């Protein structure tokens, strides 16, 4: 099921570190890699279309895993 989320890109430094999308409703999603490096910038405001991958587990464990299908940048940090 595809979902659409608006939020901010943030780096998490737990364990080795990972990229997350913190939605405007303050829910943290872990961005599934590999993802477009243009998207992975601290503080970037974005709107993404993606898929929640409940079949994937990670070492970061900071939230649900989000596979990004499409995105648009709303504002630079």
């Amino acid at each position, binding site marked *: 099921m595809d979902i659409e989320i608006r939020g901010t890109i943030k780096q*998490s*430094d*737990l*364990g*080795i570190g*990972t990229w997350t999308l913190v939605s405007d409703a303050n829910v*943290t999603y872990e961005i*599934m*890699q*590999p993802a477009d490096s243009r998207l992975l910038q601290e503080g970037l405001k974005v709107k993404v279309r993606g898929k929640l991958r*409940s*079949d*994937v*587990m*990670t*070492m*970061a*464990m*900071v*939230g*649900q*895993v989000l596979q990004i299908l499409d995105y648009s940048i709303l504002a630079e940090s």
Partner: protein
Amino acid sequence: MKKLLAVILFFGALFWVLSNYAGLGAKGEFNAIAIELKSTYSPDALEVLEKIKNKYDLEINPNSVFSQNLNLFTLSPNSKCTSNAEPTKEKLPEGTLRWSGCTRLTGYSDEYWQKILAEVRQELGKYAQAIEPNYEYKLDFIGSTRPNDPLYSRQWNLTNINIEKAWEKSKGKGVVVAVIDTGVSRVEDLQKTEFVKGYDFVNDDDDASDDNGHGTHVAGTIAQSTNNNLGVAGIAYEAKIMPLKVLNSFGAGTITDIAEAIRFAADHGANIINMSLGGAGESAILKEAIDYAYNKGVTIIAAAGNSNYPAAFYPARYPKVIGVSATSATGEKAFYSNYGAGVDISAPGGDMRGADGTKNEAGGILQNTINREGKSIYASFQGTSMASPHVAGVAALIESMGINKPEEVLNVLKQSVVKIPDDPQNFYGAGRIDAASAVQLASKGKLDFLDFFRWLRDNGYLSPRFWIDGGVMSIPLKLVIVVGSYLLAWLLRNWFPFSWNWSFTNGLFFGGTGLFILRGFYVFDLPQTPFRLLGSSIVELGNVFSNTNALNPITASVLLPFLMLIFLLGHARWKWFAIGSAISVCVALTAHAIFAPEMMWITDVWQARAYLGVNAALCFGLAYLSAKSESGAV
């Protein structure tokens, strides 16, 4: 003839023992030189000392704070380090290692020390009373087990779990720990650790090397080569590691690979599985694999997750998996750690938040791993990923002592923790892990299986969807309050006949007890605060949002009943609610004063009792007066 045989045997045995006993002198490892200068030494002596220090990159220390007057100094390796020291194997004279970012030498060879010692004797002899190698006595011999790994002093997490005392009894020998992770690379400080064959489920081959750095770090916590004069220590360093790679270089992997790895571990002789990984989604495939391994006698441990969420992630959340939450160096729940339902025990995971947003490396868990380029580094990480292998390591120490059923291992782990008396939100599970008392308990051996089930049931771990933690509320206290409230109300009614109505009964109930069962009610994924709020009596309202059962002096007082009476006295029905509340608050405060006088801000028990007692008396006066004035109207 028999006698002759006995004599031969005796001397043979004696010879064998002596030839195997190396003696104290033969263990002559020394890592420093002790120098005692003559009481009238010339200042030249210090210059010579300084010269030798610089030549061999050593540091001079007075032996202890008491040594200065005795002119006693030690020359030891320079130990100034910046964070993340990397061994670069830069060749120093005669094959010693130096770490970049860390000026400490990992230790000179014996011959090299002998050379330095000779030079010190030659140069400094005339100024000195004595110059001696500062022997580090083999610790097993004297009864301590402090390892000689140079960075061990930075592993607060190991001191935290009382590891040295545990090593006296067990080092994990004979136990196989499967590390289901990003793979494990045999970095320099895992060279002396034993490995068994693993598998790479990501690339489907036999080489389960790490291409991320996470799995190697986790394996280090479990079984880093220890007492090898290099790097850091690990918990069960005589256990064997089975590397199973299921997470790719980005640290993510599929449930099917993880499930396969669990089955592989169970089929290839693993005793323990550590999974420093997780996700929010439940999966039948994963659950079946866990049941399979559990039924084969494998103890399964997993990290609770790092989103500060009130339930553990999967797989930690499955009943047959030991879910581990993380604590910081101070022993508090780490800011990121998940908690609540599914957390069985807590262990050090670190907290690297420094002042003003900086990174505080010292607060993390330090192990040897690889960097992005695959080079060996010593790095500090934080996370429940780091907490889980502490439990896996201690489980290995326990299993090594002959306790092999997963339910028994869990029982030992849980019963040997440092208990947290006040943990209503289940931050810590059974408590903080303690390696020394775990092996102590394991050495007692006998554990009653029925005891374990009774224990499980009593602590509410048996239901998979919700559970009630009986430890959170004191049921006898609540019963005393309920019965006391009704008795007091009955007494008052004897004096002033009033009708016993619905509002009055509710007032009695909510004032002193509330729906107290809800306070200890946990549902997976739901925040616990609403339940605590619903489950709170008036007296307890002030501690709903804090993780404690200590009473808040503002709500545990006459204040709220007084305000309620002022505002509700004009209302025909609700005034009875207010009167009922005043009565039960009075009883609740009295009961707390007698049985449970824990309060916020008032730490002295007798002061707390006095405070509660005075307020109880005021509540009684309030109830008495209002019941008296109102009873005529009914």
